[in-house]
């Protein structure tokens, strides 16, 4: 219990949850009841501790060397990522295969970190392969837990020349994994307010716009307690990173007021974007890249995005290798490949989230110079977009999820915010 939760919190793009419904075999229940389950049987079934918790978060050089000593290239990588996080034609992966001969199986299986973690955790605890060698996970509670449980392969920076050369300095100092011992960023994003200008004529500037009675029943909020907590804390003037349980309570009251005034249409996962497009909601908490993708892909409506004056949230999705990966070495090569500025630019052009490779901006501008017409303006717009290459002043306005120092603190936080999103 003396363990320290190093980390900022949860999840983000939370898509649909598990689709299977819990069904009970009625007849079986009766039979089980008839057998009279003895208490001693129950005790025997208690769930064991998940894994040995590492004494220190940072691996030493010997541990890194030991992990990689017996790893051999197999010529294949299984890559687990989120939906819409790469051009569906996978041009970058094709280039990678052409260059290295390593084939990549790309699966869009991560819809939300919590449930992905719930799915792979038993295998990782049993030291078994999870079938993926590379996974993209958001900084947050599960991300921190996986570090603590020793589920990530320690990264060998000597095998990552592109990363060492091209990564933005800021990304080597992130609180959730300083020094990139276990993870390197795939992309970062901002949580702000998205709105449909067809219905919201005065551009929202403040979080208090989410309490405007004119938008009764038309406000979307996120169901993720970490996300909604940060927003409400900013709205009541608290600093999320250093917030106390008293701040959480104040923030929760702000959210309850919003709910009981009938402002909230629903607590959304990823589906808020469709609702925003078709007018079911007029304004909503939103992820920056979603709004840009919606507009770029000719969504039903052209949406707008703003960072409230009180601030917004910055989160990072990170590439990690599970410690039981079958093809760890090939996965590491692929990670490094994404840090080639040309590849990073190509990725950012599709996903429109913040790239951790600042040099990608120059690549885009050079590319734009060689293009003409709308291709040129689109590329220039992207290269200048504050949402893909945010300035330091923009970044200063953004906050991180609350860092929990113990599981008890996490439980306390959840006890305050969970009842609101599951009213």
């Amino acid at each position: 219990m003396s363990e320290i939760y190093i980390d900022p919190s949860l999840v983000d793009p939370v898509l649909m949850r598990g689709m299977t419904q819990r069904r009970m075999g009625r007849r079986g229940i009766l039979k089980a009841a008839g057998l009279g389950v003895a208490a001693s049987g129950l005790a025997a079934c208690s769930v064991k501790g998940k894994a040995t918790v590492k004494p220190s978060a940072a691996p030493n050089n010997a541990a890194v060397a030991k992990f990689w000593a017996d790893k051999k290239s197999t010529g294949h990588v299984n890559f687990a990522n989120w939906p819409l996080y790469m051009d569906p034609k996978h041009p970058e992966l094709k280039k990678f295969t052409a260059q290295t001969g390593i084939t990549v199986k790309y699966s869009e299986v991560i819809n939300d970190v919590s449930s992905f973690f719930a799915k792979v955790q038993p295998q990782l605890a049993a030291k078994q392969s999870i079938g993926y060698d590379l996974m993209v996970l958001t900084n947050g509670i599960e991300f921190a837990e996986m570090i603590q449980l020793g589920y990530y392969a320690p990264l060998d920076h000597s095998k990552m020349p592109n990363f060492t050369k091209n990564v933005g300095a800021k990304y080597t100092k992130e609180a959730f994994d300083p020094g990139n011992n276990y993870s390197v960023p795939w992309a970062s994003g901002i949580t702000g307010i998205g709105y449909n200008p067809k219905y919201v004529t005065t551009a929202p500037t403040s979080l208090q716009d989410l309490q405007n009675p004119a938008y009764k029943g038309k406000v979307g909020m996120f169901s993720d307690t970490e996300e909604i907590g940060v927003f409400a804390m900013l709205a009541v003037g608290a600093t999320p990173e250093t917030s106390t349980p008293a701040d959480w309570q104040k923030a929760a009251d702000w959210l309850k007021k919003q709910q009981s005034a009938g402002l909230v249409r629903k607590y959304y996962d990823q589906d808020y974007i469709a609702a925003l497009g078709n007018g079911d909601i007029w304004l909503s908490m939103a992820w920056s890249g979603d709004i840009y993708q919606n507009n770029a892909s000719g969504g039903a409506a052209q949406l707008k995005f703003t960072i409230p004056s009180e601030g917004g949230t910055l989160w990072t999705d990170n590439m990690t290798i599970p410690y039981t990966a079958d093809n760890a070495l090939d996965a590491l090569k692929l990670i490094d490949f994404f840090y080639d500025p040309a590849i990073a630019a190509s990725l950012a052009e599709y996903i429109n989230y913040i790239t951790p490779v600042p040099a990608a901006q120059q690549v885009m501008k050079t590319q734009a110079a060689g293009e003409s017409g709308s291709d040129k303006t689109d590329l220039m717009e992207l290269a200048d977009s504050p949402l893909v290459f945010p300035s330091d002043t923009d970044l200063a306005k953004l906050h991180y999820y609350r860092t929990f120092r113990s599981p008890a603190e996490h439980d306390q936080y959840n006890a305050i915010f969970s009842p609101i999103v599951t009213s």
Partner: protein
Amino acid sequence: MTAATVAPPTAPSGAVGPGRHPGMWHRLRSRLTPYWLALPGTLWLVIFFLVPMVAMLSLSLTQGDILNGFQQTFHWQNYTQSISDYHVQFVRSLWYGVVSTVLQVAIAYPVAYWIAFRGGSRKSFYLFLLLLPFFVSFVLRTTSWNFILADNGILLGPLKNAGLVSQNFHILATTPAVIGGLTYNYIPFMVLPIYVALERVDPRLLEAAYDLYASRVRAFRRVVLPLSLPGIFAGVVITFVPVSSDYVNAHILGGPTNTMIGNVIQNMFLTTQQYPVGAALSFALMAVLLVGLFAYARALGTEDVLEAAAT
């Protein structure tokens, strides 16, 4: 109602072929045969049902967290605490379950009646139509209602433009939307058992009733309805349980205050990692549903719930 049953241990007669001498070994073998036949089903239940059930029951009494593991401390407070925290969602789920089940009976009975008595040679075609939606995923069907019922969608858009409903009117994110979704998704499970029961009603019984000067209403009330009760009972049993523990409809069609107990349990397991609380809520729900079903069986005069459900 397809769960395997343990066959009664009666020795099948004529198991020994003619012209052979039935030795003791043979007799023993034929006596054991029913048990051998029951073995796969029993094993299935033990491995895939009983073991997980006991594991979950055990989990519901533990304390701890995902980092340090969950220790068995027979912490019964998991039950009292979680029920006092989430009794609103609990009661709401049962309420939705009752309303939806009643609606299903009201809608399904006439449909089943019509197919059974007026379907003629096309009965199986109508039944096929009834099952056709099942070829599309449950979630997809529910989500499609999101498009149909959107505030400015294909249904409400024209109505609003014509001024027939107010601009602020919406169906999604309301209680009727959730109950409607539940009813829609489970109705075939109600129609089929009622149909099976009605199909068995001998039309000559009706003729006899008419011959004895029963009016159509009276014949229905005194002959058809009682004979179809086991079908209604089976339908209620099959649908009420999954409807009450459903979480997909509330998630997709509901608003901020339509959360059902299934959503809470899912949240406990997949988001907040409070496995013991989730497990305790699951068992509490299971207990409430079982008690409810037995009370219902008693009220309906069906002695054996299993028997009735299996018909």
